[in-house]
């Protein structure tokens, strides 16, 4: 078990004042056996109407709205969490076996995965890790090479992407083999932006695998949210009345105590 302190902050600035800003955030640690929350705080400003709930995937939500005209909008959270190995004993819900628009496969992806493993030996986790290794020969990591709307097929075809795309490609291939798997958003030690990885179900146990860094996750990752793909896990969704461009800055730190 490791103890970590994390801080998270997103600041959105607008060219012109906006009013009636509605938001929904997923930026608090996921509640599960391998994560124990020791301390937790969050703030949203400017805003007085703030509410909490969980969504249908069990993710913690902060949501609300503000009618105060503003040019910048900031939300932040911080806390201390004890983390042990990422393992969850739970039968998978059917929906994690079905592709979403972001996690569909094409012929090339099927050919690629069939070459690496047939999952015949029944060792799903070993098979997934071999696929991850092989995937890095097909796709290279390149910042800003995709957007949040890029599908697994698009990322695989262009041969590059970020952590989100490596995760989507793996989910697409695994779901094509009827293996239950899900998308995870969270933090990793250091400083920067959020990270994405996957969880794969093998015989009723969820294992966490990082397709970008090619490893089986132990106890140094902080899980924030889970879902079918990026859309279920987006850390921030908002709609507002006003025009002009918005600029977003995200800053995350995570340090071992």
């Amino acid at each position, binding site marked *: 078990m490791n103890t970590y302190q994390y801080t998270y902050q997103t600041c959105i600035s607008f060219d012109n004042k906006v009013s009636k800003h509605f938001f929904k955030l997923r930026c608090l640690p996921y509640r599960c056996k391998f994560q124990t929350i020791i301390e937790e705080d969050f703030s949203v400003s400017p805003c007085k*109407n703030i*509410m909490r709930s969980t969504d*249908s995937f069990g993710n913690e*939500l902060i949501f*609300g*709205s503000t009618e105060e005209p503003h040019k910048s909008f900031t939300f932040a959270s911080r806390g201390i969490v004890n983390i042990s190995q990422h393992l969850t004993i739970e039968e998978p819900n*059917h*929906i994690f076996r079905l592709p979403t628009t972001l996690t569909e496969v094409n012929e090339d992806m099927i050919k690629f995965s069939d070459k690496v493993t047939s999952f015949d030996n029944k060792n799903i986790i070993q098979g997934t890790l071999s696929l991850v290794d092989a995937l890095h020969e097909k796709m290279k990591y390149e910042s800003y090479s995709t957007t949040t709307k890029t599908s697994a097929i698009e990322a695989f075809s262009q041969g590059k992407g970020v952590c989100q795309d490596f995760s989507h490609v793996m989910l697409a291939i695994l779901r094509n083999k009827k293996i239950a798997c899900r998308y995870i958003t969270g933090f990793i030690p250091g400083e920067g932006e959020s990270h994405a990885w996957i969880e794969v179900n093998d015989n009723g146990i969820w294992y966490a695998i990082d397709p970008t860094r090619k490893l089986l996750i132990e106890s140094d990752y902080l899980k924030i949210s889970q879902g*079918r793909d990026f859309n279920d896990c987006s850390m921030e969704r908002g*709609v507002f009345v006003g025009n002009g461009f918005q600029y977003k800055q995200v800053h995350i730190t995570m340090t071992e105590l």
Partner: protein
Amino acid sequence: MKTLIERKDAVNTWMERFGVKFGIYKHGVFHEQLFPFDSVPRVISHDEWTILEKGLIQRCNALNAFLLDIYNEKKIVKDGIIPEEFIYSSKGYFAECEGIKPSKGIFAHIAGIDLVQAKDGTWYILEDNLRIPSGASYPMIARNITRKVSPQTFANNHVAENRNYSDLLKETMDYVNDGRGINVILTPGRYNSAFFEHSYLAEKSGAILAFPGDLIVEDDMLFYKDISGNKERVGAVYRRVSDEYMDPLTFEESSVLGVPNIMQIYAKGNVAIVNGIGNGVADDKGIYYFVPKMIKYYLNEEPILKNAPTYLPYFEEDKKYVLENLSKLVIKDVSEAGGYGVVFGRDLDAEHLKEMYDLVDKEPRRWIAQEVIDFKDLEIIEDGKYVERKADLRAFVLTGKETKVWKSGLTRFSRNPNSFVVNSSQGGGFKDTWVMEE
């Protein structure tokens, strides 16, 4: 009766003055047209109605049990009655609704069940509409006007009252509202095809007609804000906005018709949404096939009303039959509504038949096929003469404390003598539906 028929034009003039219209988009342009009314009513005898009523209540109770189950325990899947991919790949299924138990456990408060009667008198269920079925206001207002134009007709015939639809609606809303606040009807606005109905039902049921932007989520509750900024808590929303547009922070982001974050407080049970979100999984044309099985599974009863004989190409055996008999079947795209995506095999030439064959072969899950039912035609008056036309009946079933069937319904007919499609969006007309008392 004779006076009523003679004064058909008077009735239609009245309707025009009342603004009984529906909107339609043709080639992307909004038109408003009158919904042509035919004065000859469809008459359903008391005995016939008693059976229909029982069957409809049974069906809607099973559909409600199914929705609650599918978004919670999923027993019907675990027990192998319905294959899981049938449910989870349905476009009407929303993972965002997993675990939601709506107020009083009701998902389908207002069901529009479409039926047809065959020549031998048997009624068949054509489809269930559990999202936002429209049309109840038309027979209400038609009755209102026909009673004015020809009061004698109603003095001589013991026709069940149908102007009380709004009372049933209010009763249903009040029950799921459970004293939390006011009732509102949320309309997408003026350019919606059923805007006339939204405003009419709001007026008659005493609900407030809310436009997008009038509703706001605060302190875990829903509020209606009036023009001077006063806020009033809302307990039940009868929404006429589709699921995908109901919450831009949960579903379609670009939607300006919905209420941001309403899903969160709905999931918490702090507001009732009529009809529930995610009902599309139960009125999917593919799930239709399984409704008789649901009735047996949840209610342990034999279905009282029949489905039209239906085949699911998803099952190999059915697929074989469908492909071999394509030219005599009706093929329906499971994801389309409003009479779109309905193809009669006999209308296709060899080339299109081959196209259809390939589509069914390639994407079996997307289609259902049904035997063509020999409809019992109804008489309508055209240019002063009686002619026979295809017609269906949309029965409205409302579920609150009890499940009740409105003693009337929307009878739609095709004005084209060769068409079987009666939807108003395809140019059909309507009749009043008389349910006889005794």
